[in-house]
């Protein structure tokens, strides 16, 4: 793999980098970070709080990797630096442990969902507002961006497997499962409409992306092993996922394991099977023509467009479902959510959010964003403007196919 040493200083990455865009500092650009990584290695006196900050401000959005003519994996290099060379740049252990507890198992997820639901009740909302000044700004913005919750159960508990002969292992995710269970159900409906049969193993774990990005790859590896084993047992050919962040992490499973690990080949096999739901659906649903559809604009999550090269597919899925897509400027620039970046770097995260929301075209009713972090973060900034909504493209497509009588409305289960 290419290293920082291979950078030829062309500077083409600068305009793609969200942190350079909001700070204007060379140290906050990919090219600058490569210089900083070099300094970090060669000069122990470089190990100060400023340098660590400039490096750690990296969002892991991978935009620099998309545009680098020399294929320098700058985002990956910063990620490796976090886990191997700068344990102090990791988020507080307590935060990681809380996340492990909440996201790590179906039981933890159920608690997470209960807390989220409670924060939306009249009492909970009042309590959160009373204590808001003690909450970190990131936590407040997560609260403000929570979707309107209908379901009481995790989606995996309510998604029925189609039994033997299933070609798709449906990956429900953690936050998707707890907070966006309806999106998961809609994705399953559309996959079936496209002729697939699904298996949804109950024991699947979080993809591990957050832990990996924040420098705890051991946890990610542990969960990866569980997911790989379940996939092998399922007999499915494809792993379908509807969260951009999870998809990108699942497609990099092999890099979690050392080259000589017995898991290496199994992880490779797993990651080759991963496909995003918009990839699977882009060309396989019956085309609808609708005159009345509200105009939609697309935000391309970093882990779609930069990590997986998915952008056209989202538009063709929405187009097929009868929506007119109006493009927003800088659709591929990070919204500032970036995993738990909104919790660890609230100021930069808010600056990016403001910039992102300003680009939403006036005539767009919906902003389609295929990632739970983006959905929550962008919705949190929009709450005041009621006429616009940030929605998963799968939900928009599903509504169209339901209106056309091709998907059944589900009764809200309790």
């Amino acid at each position, binding site marked *: 793999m*290419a290293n920082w*040493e*291979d*950078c*030829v*200083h*062309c*500077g*083409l*990455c*600068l*305009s*793609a980098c969200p942190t*350079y865009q909001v700070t*204007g*500092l*060379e*140290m906050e650009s990919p*090219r*600058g970070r490569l*210089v*900083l990584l070099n*300094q970090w290695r060669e000069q122990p006196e*470089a190990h*100060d709080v*400023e*340098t660590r900050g*400039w490096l750690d401000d990296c969002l892991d959005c991978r935009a620099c990797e*998309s*545009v*680098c*003519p*020399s*294929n*320098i994996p700058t985002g990956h290099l910063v990620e490796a630096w976090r886990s191997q060379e700068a344990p102090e740049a990791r988020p507080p252990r307590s935060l990681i442990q809380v996340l492990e507890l909440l996201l790590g198992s179906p039981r933890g997820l159920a608690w997470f969902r209960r807390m989220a639901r409670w924060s939306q009740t009249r009492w909970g909302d009042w309590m959160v507002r009373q204590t808001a000044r003690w909450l970190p700004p990131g936590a407040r913005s997560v609260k403000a961006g929570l979707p309107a919750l209908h379901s009481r159960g995790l989606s995996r508990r309510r998604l029925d497997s189609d039994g033997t002969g299933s070609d798709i292992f449906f990956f429900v995710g953690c936050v998707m499962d707890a907070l966006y269970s309806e999106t998961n159900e809609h994705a399953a409906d559309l996959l079936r409409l496209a002729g697939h049969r699904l298996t949804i193993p109950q024991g699947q774990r979080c993809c591990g992306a957050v832990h990996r990005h924040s420098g705890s790859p051991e946890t990610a590896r542990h969960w990866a092993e569980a997911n790989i084993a379940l996939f092998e047992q399922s007999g499915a050919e494809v792993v379908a996922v509807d969260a951009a962040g999870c998809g990108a992490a699942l497609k990099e499973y092999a890099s979690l394991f050392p080259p000589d690990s017995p898991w290496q080949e199994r992880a490779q096999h797993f990651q080759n099977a991963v496909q995003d739901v918009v990839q699977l659906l882009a060309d396989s649903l019956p085309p609808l023509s609708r005159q009345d559809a509200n105009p939609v604009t697309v935000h391309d999550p970093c882990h779609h467009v930069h990590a997986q090269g998915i952008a056209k597919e989202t538009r063709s899925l929405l187009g097929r479902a009868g929506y007119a897509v109006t493009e927003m*400027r800088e659709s591929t620039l990070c919204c500032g959510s970036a995993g738990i970046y909104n919790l660890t770097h609230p100021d930069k995260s808010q600056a990016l959010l403001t910039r992102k929301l300003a680009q939403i075209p006036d005539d767009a009713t919906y902003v389609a964003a295929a990632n739970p972090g983006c959905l929550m973060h962008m919705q949190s900034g929009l709450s005041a403007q009621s006429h616009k909504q940030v929605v998963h493209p799968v939900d928009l497509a599903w509504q169209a196919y339901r209106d056309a009588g091709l998907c059944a409305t589900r009764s809200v289960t309790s």
Partner: protein
Amino acid sequence: MTGWLDQLRQALGSEHVLTHPIALTAYAQDGYTLASGRPAAVVLPASSAEVQTVVQILAAADKAIVPRGAGTSLSGGAIADSNSVILHFSRMNQIHAIDWHNRVAEVDPGVVNQDISRALAPGGLFYAPDPSSQQACTIGGNFAENSGGPHCLKYGVTLNHILMADVVLPDGTTARLGNLAGEPDGPDWLGLLIGSEGTLGIATRLWLRALPIPPASRTFLALFDSVEEASRAVSDIIAAGVIPAAMEMMDKLAIHAVEQGAYPVGYPEDLEAVLLIELDGEPAVVDADRRVVHGILAARQVRALREAESLEERTLWWANRKTAFGAMGLISPRYYVQDGVIPRHVLPEALDTIGRIGERFRIRIANVFHAGDGNLHPLLLYNHQDPDEVARVKEAGSEILAYCIRVGGSISGEHGIGIEKLQEMAWQFAPQDLLAQRSVKQAFDPGGRFNPGKLLPTPGRCIDFRPVP
């Protein structure tokens, strides 16, 4: 002693004055990797008034000033020494107004070149100069370097597209040069400053000419089995009276690199050369030109001819070409790009000569260039950790420039002189010419504080840019 730093902090806010040694190291280089230098400080002004204040403070402190846009200069134009302060224009990045009726865009110097065309597109306009680094480079840098780009063959360089500019001069005063009519009275001060590489004045606001997007545009790839035939085709096309919007060439090694990069086109592996040709204008004219060009290419043994069938395809072809320099990182630790210009008709001979120079100095050379206007970009590949190779690459580069001058060309088409080609300036210009240029500099900047050590060879001045490694 830190009086000037405190004054800068007071004027701009301390977060916009950088002195941390690691931060300064991040600013030690631009796109030219054969030298580096750590500035005394970096400041990030937010307005013309702040730029003026900074210039005044630093004039009083006798500190030099190096302006920097995105740091993509290929001649070291944005490299500073330890007595210089870098003015980084990243915070001055607004497009202030677009006058659709008169087709003028009013912009800050830190605006990215490509963003201007993006902002103009909804009204059917574009900004013509398109350096290959246009996705990152800024208009202030384009002003300083008089940047070109593939489409300058037909549309002209930056000089032809800036109508008016506000500048801050070395004495801390400001001036508005040019006018919106594009035909100012008296001396062409604007023309003097554009391309002066930040040595005479710093642009703080620019008014740019916007052009209507041509109604028809066709883009072709002509694949060749011989560099010589491709070069002759270029000459033939111009000789036939066709002025393409762009006519670019890449040789085998360059193709090999870009095909491994972010935007592979899928060129056959055994290809010797490719021409990327774009024709634009009125549909009937484009059709007529297309027939002429096809005829010439066929006569020159073109192996295959492809025409872009969609905007996506055209965009991909251009992205492939425009990231060619950066893609050298895939086949070599570093590259040194030359910018010599030659009369078009000697193209085949020039490529042959460059090849022989490469052999003699044992340097691999890839060729990517604006064939239509004879602007060569030989990319000399080297390993920066091999001092002998670094020495050889510089010598080979000089030799190529000497050849360009010998055949009646020039040492720079669009990348500027910077600190890279100081020695070669004395080959290109007679002593009297240089003296005249020096007296202009003397008149504007008697203290020599604006981008010192660049553009003009200054006998006797000790410059402490460190060669790399």
